[in-house]
């Protein structure tokens, strides 16, 4: 479609005009985005309510606050992060300027997801803007009210040429992916992640893929089961389980299995009442397609609590599953819904083995008092991120990189990691044309003498301490002077 070509062409022309180079300009855009959020809070809440039955408080906490925090951080740190980053020099470059210069990449494509439609589309956008790029944003068509609102609001607040919004589904995204971008950021599932990366490969475009997986949640014995269950239930049932870092399934010590089930039941009642369908704090499944998909996962397991559903409103009750076989359907794919399977293990080693037999997840949770056991779990497993003794909170710390590994994704963002993801880190060496004498050792014709000098100048020794380096530095300067004297003869 020519429309995609035009859209991307416009963004590229705007990028080439260099107007996004100025830090002042980027800050203005970020401030404008902040106004977009504060001036349209109600409309955003309304769109999210229509898409996911999200309530106003959840909109504030899970969609808006995170964005506002990120904008504040970027405004505060932009000048520092965009500045040249000096690095350690070697003997040959002691007199030179050596640094890494972050630069914009060019035109970035951001493909958003439907579960946190504002957060997941706009948080990467913030990083891309801060790093000086032009952006084409493709919000998810599945959360159609949010997508329509994003398309309406972005051009009202941001530069219309540099930042474009494209709406549409598979056909439009496929067309978009034929164009050349300088970075593509995709949030979604691994099937589409592979398609995105394959399309990116045609243009050698680097990608950041925020995918998913089955995030395990291990509960050791000797924990405060009340607190544990509350934290797990919160992580699991927020957004009706449609969170990429929701605890997907529980592995708990056999001895506490019954207590965990009981306490989870009580917690669900505490949170959502006897009939969660009536609770204003409980969301809905995004679409009939996902509603049916999630229900099909019930097959083969026992419903210990919940299990009610209503297709007309895409409602599925918070559900606890027991007698779950490791090979059952619910254990084969990421649930992304309000079903919480509980499996038992005899000890932490069994839990670790179970986790390692599966794809690396986006998040891993472990509840345990014993720091040694926690360290063991972290040391012997791998995942995008970890929160111990809580769920999801690592997402909120902008000094931690948020991203997956293996099947759960590649690359990371949030805070400085966003800025760095959307920047090219250019290696810069600024020399002068003086000190040519030192260079003469590397020019042909070669000689054993020259080789000796080069070895003296640049050979690293094992285990030189910092003082040794200072000594080497002084020695290097002395050698350079000596060489000038010797080579001139």
């Amino acid at each position, binding site marked *: 479609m020519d429309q995609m070509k035009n859209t991307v062409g416009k963004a590229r022309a705007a990028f080439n005009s260099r107007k996004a180079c100025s830090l002042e300009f980027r800050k203005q855009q970020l401030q404008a985005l902040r106004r977009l959020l504060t001036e349209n809070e109600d409309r955003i809440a309304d769109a999210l309510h229509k898409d996911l039955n999200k309530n106003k408080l959840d909109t504030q906490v899970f969609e808006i606050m995170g964005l506002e925090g990120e904008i504040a951080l970027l405004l505060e740190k932009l000048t520092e992060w965009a500045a040249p980053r000096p690095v350690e020099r070697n003997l040959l470059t002691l007199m030179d300027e050596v640094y890494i210069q972050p630069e914009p990449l060019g035109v970035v494509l951001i493909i958003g997801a439907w579960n946190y439609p504002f957060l997941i589309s706009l948080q990467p956008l913030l990083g891309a803007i801060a790093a000086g790029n032009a952006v084409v944003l493709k919000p998810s068509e599945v959360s159609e009210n949010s997508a329509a609102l994003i398309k309406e609001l972005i051009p009202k607040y941001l530069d219309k040429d540099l930042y474009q919004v494209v709406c549409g589904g598979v056909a439009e995204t496929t067309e978009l992916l034929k164009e050349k971008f*300088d970075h593509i950021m995709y949030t979604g599932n691994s099937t589409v992640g592979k398609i995105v990366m*394959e399309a990116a490969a045609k243009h050698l475009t680097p990608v950041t893929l925020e995918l998913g997986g089955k995030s395990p949640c291990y509960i050791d014995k000797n924990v405060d089961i009340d607190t544990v269950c509350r934290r797990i239930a919160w992580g699991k049932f927020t957004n009706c389980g449609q969170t990429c870092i929701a605890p997907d399934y529980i592995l708990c010590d056999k001895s506490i299995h019954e207590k965990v089930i009981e306490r989870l039941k009580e917690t669900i009642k505490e949170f959502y009442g006897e009939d969660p369908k009536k609770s204003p704090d409980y969301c809905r499944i995004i679409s009939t397609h996902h509603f049916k998909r999630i229900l099909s996962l019930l097959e083969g397991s026992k419903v210990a609590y919940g299990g009610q559903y209503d297709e007309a409103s895409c409602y599925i009750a918070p559900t606890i599953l027991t007698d779950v076989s490791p090979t059952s359907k619910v254990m084969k794919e990421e649930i992304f819904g309000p079903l919480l399977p509980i499996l038992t293990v005899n000890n932490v080693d069994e839990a670790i083995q179970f986790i390692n037999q599966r794809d690396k997840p986006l998040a891993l949770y472990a509840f345990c008092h014993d720091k040694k056991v926690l360290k063991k779990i972290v040391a012997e497993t791998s995942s995008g991120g970890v929160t111990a003794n809580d769920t999801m909170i690592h997402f909120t710390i902008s*000094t931690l990189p948020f991203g997956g590994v293996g099947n759960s994704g590649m690359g990371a963002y949030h805070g400085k990691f966003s800025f760095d993801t959307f920047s090219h880190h250019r290696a810069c*060496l600024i020399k002068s044309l003086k000190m040519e004498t030192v260079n003469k050792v590397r020019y*042909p014709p070669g000689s054993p003498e020259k080789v000796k000098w080069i070895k003296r100048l640049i*050979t*690293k020794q094992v285990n030189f301490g910092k003082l040794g380096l200072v000594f080497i530095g002084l020695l290097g300067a002395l050698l350079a002077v000596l060489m000038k004297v010797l080579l001139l003869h």
Partner: protein
Amino acid sequence: MSSTKEVAARLREAFNSGKTRTAEFRLKQLKAMLNLMKENEGALLEALKKDLRKPNFESIISEVLFTKNEIVCAINNLTEWMKPEYVEKTLVTKLDTCFIKKEPFGVALIIGPWNYPIQLVLTPFIGAVAAGNCAILKPSEVSPNSSQLLSELLPKYLDKDCFAVVCGGVKETTELLEEKFDYIFFTGGTHVGKIIMTAAAKHLTPVSLELGGKNPCYVDKSCDINNTAHRIAWARFLNMGQTCIAPDYVLCTKAVREELVPALINCLEEFYGKNPQESEDLGRIINEKHFNRLKALLSSGKVAVGGQTDEKDKYIAPTVLVDVKETDPVMQEEIFGPILPIVDVENIDEAIAFMNRHEKPLALYVYSADNKVVKDVLERTSSGGFCSNDCIMQMTLFFLAFWRSWR
């Protein structure tokens, strides 16, 4: 078919056993690598001579010494690099511990090029080992002596379960790429780079692609023309021009060109004598295919110096071309040979516009005594790396990330 599968499976089992996780194990492997380099210098130089007629002088510096330094850097810093990185916390997490933990990916595949067949395959390999991965090394079949030597030596020094060398060409590489790896590191051309990334996409494997491009070199009137000529000539004709970060072409005004060309001619005589084909310090083109490719590029513009070729010897004389136009064949592809075209521009703005009309290169060079000129070019262009008043030297800095240009 099964042997590639078997090798990959063996390495995965070794990785899953956890043996690469400890600093002790990794240091042992790194020290063994250092011994490999120290105890086999002669054999390495011999292999490089057979593959590229690489002069010992070059091999020692650009292949052996560079690799040894990389190993030593890893040994000296490993404990530091492995430590968790503690980060600033939020108010809510003030009482908690927040850190970034460095973990190995798993099994890495490292595909090396033929131009620096030892250094460019071992440098990423060292990184993979230091980070705790198992790794398969696939050195280039185009430099068969170096690859053969690596496949003999590595198993003698390193843990055979964790590290393997697989030799072969397109067929073997294609088979390898069907396996699932946790990281793929590739050095080579953009065409194959796309194939690698497409294959990696099937398994969602992250990749590092060290590719190439046409590295421009802008020479300003304020520079010391003699020093400039020496540095450019050294960088261009090192390894017979077969260096990914060699200056590919020069942009300068006619006036600068009139001084630069005689300076370059003097340099060439200083470096290689009156008949460069007899110099022991000049390598050769890797094979017939590249020789023919390069020979065809000599018809662009006008030969200012050089231009001689000898097919049997795979020799092309260090050549400077002038009166080269943007549309000439020599300006359509990465040269990767001992040919230096000089393109005339009116001024720095024209030079910058010229550079920006082309794909982002791996390196970009500026020669000027005027700091403003240097900063101007730096700010208005983009490239993998940048060096003013020299070439290639940015690669010698271990702490300067040798970031890739994706083109």
